[in-house]
C-alpha cells in the first residue's frame, strides 16, 4: 500500500526550478534512501512532502488522497519531519523536547495526558534515551542529541518519517544505531524516507534508493540497480567499489572527471 | 548687581526719563498688557501675536490695529522702535542687539505680589512719559482691592475659622509663598493651605495629601481644568468630590492668571464672589 505517491512533481523557488518532474512512491514497511549531490533538491523533496513548500506542477498523494486535502494538523500527525539542522533555542530537558512531538495532538489549552506521557516514554525507550530524560539537551553529546531528536519524531506517532541527514556528524557506532533504528521503525509498518550522503549506509540499510540529480529523478530502484558505475559517474562524478558480504554494499572510492569542473589529478 | 528689570548696558543707555517714545515695541504678552493700559495704540509700533487673542490677552479689544510680530531681530527692526519692552526669558538675542544699537530696552520680571505689579506699572509709566496715568491705574487697582478686601473681611468676621484654600494645578503642583497665585489668594482673604505646609514657590501635593489637608476651597486654572492634558487629569479625579463634598470649587479663567496687570484684580474679584458671599 502506497503511503506516498508523487506524480511529475515540480517545485520552484524564486523562479529557479529545484525539482523537475519527479515521480516516486513510498510503500508501507519500506525504508527508502534519497541520495544525490549537493543542491540536487533532496531537502526540497522532504519539505514538499511535509507541506512546507508548494508544488508548482504535479501532485503529491498521501494515503491515496491529495496532500492539499489534509489540514496542517493532520499532516503533522501523519508525517514526521526531522530537519537537517538541529535548532534548539532554549536549554530544555530531554523529556520536554521529546514531548514536543505531541504538539499536533494537543489544543493550546490542553496539558499532556496520561496517554501522551506513555507515548513519550515509549519513544525514549525505543531510542535508548530514557536514562537521559531529565538531562538538559544542550549538555548532551552529538550522538545522544540525534537520538533525542528521533525520539521527538517518534513521539508524534507518524506513519511516515521524513529524515534529512539524521546521521550527519555522528560517529560510526551512533550512525549505525540510528540507521538500524530507522529500519526497524519501517519494519513495524511505517514508511521511512531518509536523505543520506553516506552511500555505504544507504546501500546497507535501504530497501530502495532514489537518486536525484539536478532536480530530476535520475534513477530509482534497489541499491544494486541505482548505484551502477554509470549512475555514480554521471551524478557524483565518482567511482566506487562494490561488495556483497551480508548484502550488497557500495563504497565511494575515487573521484573521476565527469564534467568541466573536476580534473583528474 | 543692578536692580531687577534694569537693562544692563553702557553709559548712554540708561532708562529714558521724561522722554516720550512714539514707536514702542513690546515682545512679551505681559508687557503688551501693561503698555496698552498706559498709552494709545498710535504710539505702539508692534505687540506680540498673542495680544489680539481674547482667550489669552486681557487687552485684545485694544490691539486691533496694531501690527503683531514675533520676537526676532528682523521683525523688531522692521518696526523701527524707540523703546523695546520684554520679559526676562524670551528674546535675549533681540535685547542684546538693540542695546548695542542704542535703543532703550526695558525688562520685566514675573510679579510675585501686587506690590510688584504697582512697581512695574510705575516703571513703565515713567519710561513712556505717562507717570500720572500710571499712578491713576495703581490707585484704581488699590481701591478695587480694598473694596474686595472689605467684602471678604466682613465675611470672615461672620465665620470663625479662616477660609482655607488651595490652588491645585496640573501634575499636583500648588503655589506656595512668594508666588503670584498666593498674592491673589491673600488679596481675596483666603488662607493658603500650601503655606501651612511650608511650601515656598511651587511645590507638589499628591491627591491624598490634598484630601488630607481638607481645604474649604479648591482653585483651578480654567485652561488646565478644561483642556485635555495628561497631567491635568488629576484635577478631575472623582475622589476629590467624594472626599470633600462641601468644598467650594472655583475655576479662574487662565486669562487673568497669565500676567500681573490691572486685569489681575478680576481674579481676586472672582475668588471673593465665589468664597466670601
Amino acid at each position, binding site marked *: 500500500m502506497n503511503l506516498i505517491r508523487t506524480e511529475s512533481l515540480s517545485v520552484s523557488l524564486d523562479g529557479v526550478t529545484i525539482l523537475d518532474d519527479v515521480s516516486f512512491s513510498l510503500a508501507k514497511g519500506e525504508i527508502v534512501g534519497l541520495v544525490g549531490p549537493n543542491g540536487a533538491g533532496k531537502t526540497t523533496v522532504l519539505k514538499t512532502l511535509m507541506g512546507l513548500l508548494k508544488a508548482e506542477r504535479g501532485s503529491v498523494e498521501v494515503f491515496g488522497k491529495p496532500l492539499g486535502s489534509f489540514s496542517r494538523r493532520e499532516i503533522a500527525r501523519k508525517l514526521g519531519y526531522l530537519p537537517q539542522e*538541529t535548532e534548539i533555542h532554549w536549554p530544555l530537558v530531554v523529556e520536554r523536547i521529546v514531548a514536543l512531538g505531541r504538539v499536533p495532538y494537543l489544543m493550546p489549552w490542553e496539558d499532556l495526558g496520561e496517554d501522551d506521557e506513555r507515548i513519550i516514554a515509549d519513544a525514549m525507550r525505543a531510542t535508548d534515551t530514557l536514562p537521559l530524560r531529565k538531562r538538559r539537551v544542550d549538555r548532551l553529546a552529538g550522538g545522544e542529541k540525534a537520538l533525542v531528536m528521533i525520539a521527538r519524531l517518534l513521539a508524534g506517532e507518524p506513519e511516515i518519517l521524513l529524515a534529512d541527514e539524521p546521521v550527519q556528524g555522528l560517529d560510526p557506532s551512533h550512525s549505525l544505531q540510528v540507521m538500524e533504528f530507522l529500519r526497524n521503525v519501517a519494519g513495524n509498518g511505517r514508511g521511512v524516507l531518509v536523505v543520506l550522503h553516506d552511500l555505504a549506509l544507504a546501500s546497507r540499510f535501504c530497501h530502495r534508493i532514489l537518486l536525484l540529480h539536478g532536480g530530476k529523478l535520475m534513477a530509482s530502484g534497489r541499491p544494486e540497480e541505482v548505484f551502477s558505475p554509470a549512475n555514480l559517474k554521471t551524478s557524483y562524478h565518482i567511482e566506487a567499489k562494490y561488495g556483497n558480504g551480508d548484502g550488497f554494499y557500495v563504497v565511494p572510492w575515487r573521484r573521476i572527471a565527469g564534467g568541466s569542473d573536476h580534473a583528474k589529478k | 548687581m543692578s536692580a531687577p528689570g534694569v537693562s544692563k548696558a553702557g553709559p548712554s543707555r540708561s532708562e529714558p526719563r521724561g522722554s516720550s517714545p512714539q514707536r514702542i515695541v513690546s515682545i512679551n504678552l505681559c508687557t503688551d498688557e501693561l503698555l496698552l493700559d498706559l498709552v494709545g495704540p498710535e504710539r505702539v509700533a508692534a505687540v506680540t501675536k498673542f495680544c489680539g487673542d481674547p482667550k489669552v490677552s486681557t487687552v485684545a479689544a485694544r490691539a486691533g490695529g496694531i501690527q503683531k510680530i514675533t520676537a526676532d531681530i528682523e521683525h523688531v527692526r522692521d518696526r523701527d522702535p524707540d523703546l523695546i519692552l520684554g520679559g526676562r526669558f524670551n528674546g535675549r538675542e533681540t535685547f542684546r542687539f538693540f542695546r548695542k544699537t542704542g535703543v532703550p530696552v526695558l525688562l520685566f520680571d514675573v510679579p510675585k505680589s501686587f506690590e510688584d505689579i504697582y512697581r512695574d506699572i510705575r516703571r513703565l509709566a515713567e519710561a513712556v512719559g505717562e507717570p500720572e496715568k500710571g499712578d491713576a491705574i495703581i490707585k484704581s487697582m488699590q481701591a478695587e482691592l480694598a473694596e474686595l478686601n472689605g467684602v471678604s473681611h466682613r465675611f470672615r468676621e461672620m465665620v470663625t475659622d479662616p477660609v482655607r484654600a488651595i490652588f491645585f494645578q496640573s*501634575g499636583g503642583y500648588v503655589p506656595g509663598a512668594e508666588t503670584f497665585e498666593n498674592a491673589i489668594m491673600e488679596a481675596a482673604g483666603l488662607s493658603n493651605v500650601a503655606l501651612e505646609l511650608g511650601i515656598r514657590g511651587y511645590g507638589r501635593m499628591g491627591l491624598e495629601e490634598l484630601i488630607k489637608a481638607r481645604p474649604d476651597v479648591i482653585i483651578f486654572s480654567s485652561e488646565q481644568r478644561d483642556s485635555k492634558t495628561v497631567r491635568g487629569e488629576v484635577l478631575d479625579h472623582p475622589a476629590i468630590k467624594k472626599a470633600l463634598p462641601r468644598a467650594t470649587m472655583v475655576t479662574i479663567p487662565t486669562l487673568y492668571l497669565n500676567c500681573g496687570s490691572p486685569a489681575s484684580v478680576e481674579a481676586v474679584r472672582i475668588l471673593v464672589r465665589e468664597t466670601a458671599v
Partner: protein
Amino acid sequence: MNRSDTRSPRPVSQGADCHTRCGISGDGVPGWLLYSVLGTLLAAAFLGSLSLGTLKYSLWDAIRDPSSDLAFIFWDIRLPRAVLGLLVGATLGLAGAAMQGFLRNPLAEPGILGVTGGAALGAVAVFYTGLVAVFPMMLPVGGIAGAFVSVLLLYLFAGTLASVQTLILAGVAINVIAFAGTSLMLNLVKDPYAVLDIVFWQMGSLADRSFRHVVLILPFVLAGWGLLLWDGRALEALSLGETTASSLGISLRRLRARVVLGTALAVGASVAVCGSIGFVGLIVPHLMRPLVGYRPGRLLGASALGGAILLLGSDIAVRLVPSLVELKLGVVTSLVGAPFFLLLIFQMRKKIV
C-alpha cells in the same frame, strides 16, 4: 565534530549555571509550588498597595460598607491604582515573555524594542491633536496603533531569527523614530505645557488614576492577554526552530499575527494610560525562566504574575518616597532595569565568544 546547535551564535538564556547551583532541576520548579508562591507574593503586593498612602482608613470597613465615609479612599484611589498596577505589570511581563519566545531571544522586550515608545507616541498624539475629546476610547486606541506600527516595523527591520545586534539596533531605530515623532509634535503643538506633559509621560506613573482608566483599557488588555496566552504551545514548538514548528502543525503566519496583535493591544492600552514603563518585560522573564525549566509556554503565565508583582512592588517603592519629589514609576524600573540589561549583555558577550 558535533552537530551544531544553532545556525548563528545564539545566546542561550542566562541563569543556566546559577540554577543548578541553587539546586533547581533542569525542568524547573513544580507548577503548584511556583504558582502558589507567586500567587502569595502577588496577594501581598496587592494588599500592600491598597494599604499604603497618606490617608488612613480601614480596608475591611471600606469593603463591607462602600457608602461609608472613608470608603472612597479604597474604591476611588487605592483600588484603581492597585488594579492598574496588576494589569499593566502583568501585561509587561507577559508581553516580554511572548516576544522573547517568538523572537527566540532573551533580550527582547517591549521597552527595548521600541514598542513602548511607539505606544507612548501614539497616545500623546491622540491627546494633543484633540482626538481624545472626540471619544475617550481614542486614547488606548492611539496607544495600540502606535504599538502596532512599532511591532510591524520591528519585524520588518529584524525578521524573526535576527541576531542580538540586529534586534537591538532595530529597537534603537524604532525608539529614535518615536522620539523624532514626539519632538515633531512638541514643535507643532500650541500648548506651552505640552513639553512638560510629554516628558513626564515618558517616565511612566500610576499615580492619581481612577477607575475610569481601568475601564478604558480593560477590554483591550484582556483581549491582548487572550491572544498572547493562546500561543504557549506554539512558542514551545518554536524552541526547535521554525521548520520543525511548522512540521508540527504550527502556522507561523498566524502565530506572528497573534503575537503582534496581542502585544500591540495589551501594551498599547497600558502605555496609553500609564506612560512608558520599561524593563519589566526584560527582568521578569529572565528571572522566571530557570524556574519554569526554560519552557517558553510556561514562562508566559509565570511572567505575567511576576510582572504584576514587580510593578506593584515598584509602585509601593515610589510611594515610600515623600511626594514633594514625585518619583516616577518608569524611573524606578529603569534604575533597576538598565544595569540589569547591561549585565545581561555582558554575560552574553562572554558566552558567544
